[in-house]
């Protein structure tokens, strides 16, 4: 299984990493923002982790 190294290899490698990082950061940002908004709407004793 020999790799075919073309000129676009580096772009594909960087694209793979960029998609992964952007997806994880984007998901985390959505969860944390929504968490902050909803946390402010419940009594403090409903947030037992704080």
């Amino acid at each position, binding site marked *: 299984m020999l790799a075919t190294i073309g000129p676009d290899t580096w772009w*594909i*490698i960087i694209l*793979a990493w960029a998609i*992964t990082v952007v*997806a994880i950061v984007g998901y985390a940002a959505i*969860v*944390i923002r929504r968490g902050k908004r*909803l946390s*402010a709407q419940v009594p403090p004793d409903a947030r037992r982790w704080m």
Partner: protein
Amino acid sequence: MTDMATTPGATATHASGAMPAPSTSSKGTRILGAISLIGTALVLLFAFVISKPDAQLGESIRIMYVHVPTVTAAYLLMIINAGFCAVTLWKRSRFADTMAFATGQVGTLMLALTLITGALWGRVTWNAFWVWDARLTTAALLFLMYLGYLAVRSLGGPPEARMVRSSIVGIAAACLIPVVHKSVEWWDSLHQGQTVLGKLKPEVSGQQYTTLMLAMVVALCISAWLVLHRFRLSWLEDQLDDVGLDAALEARRSEAAGVAINVGGAK
């Protein structure tokens, strides 16, 4: 933060800074988040600077440093999801159901990234983004099963019925994990064999093995951090649903009492 003063549970101590601002964070998640960030920086250093190209895979080994950790995290999260689904069915536990949802959602994200990075690796190695290979096809099927789980979990209806329905789908989806894992042995496959848990020896070694192991540990830390935040967010959503349900019931009771008084007055 602007709506804090007008929302139930918002207190002056929050605004004055005596308590931390309301969020899904805790000391534990902040430490885990810091470890994940530092680990990610280290993985990038190892993957792009320290690790040498592979003799067979060439530079495309650098995609493996993200592809293998994401699939490992996805498998692990889906197995944990199945465990929590079983506990949900057995105990009807809302905690287990919420944990199952959090692990299922983060696991599906990790599997989506596995499929995308795998397709990009396929473009470099096979000159095709997709082939109907046993490993790729079963992994895509697993992804669709978990999308189904998330869809069923998001359906309306009584919470208990929702728990039961989604847990059954979650356990059914997890049954496909061994098939995906063993697909490269059971069928002729273009996909390489097991990279880390192979029967003979690791197919990668030295710096590449170190980089891969580090990336896997970091992917697990990131997954745990995401699951904790997602669990707490779902917990808050459930709390607010309960408050809304209680308010609706109270309004209905008041309405019914008002009707009874009017009927009594009319007599």
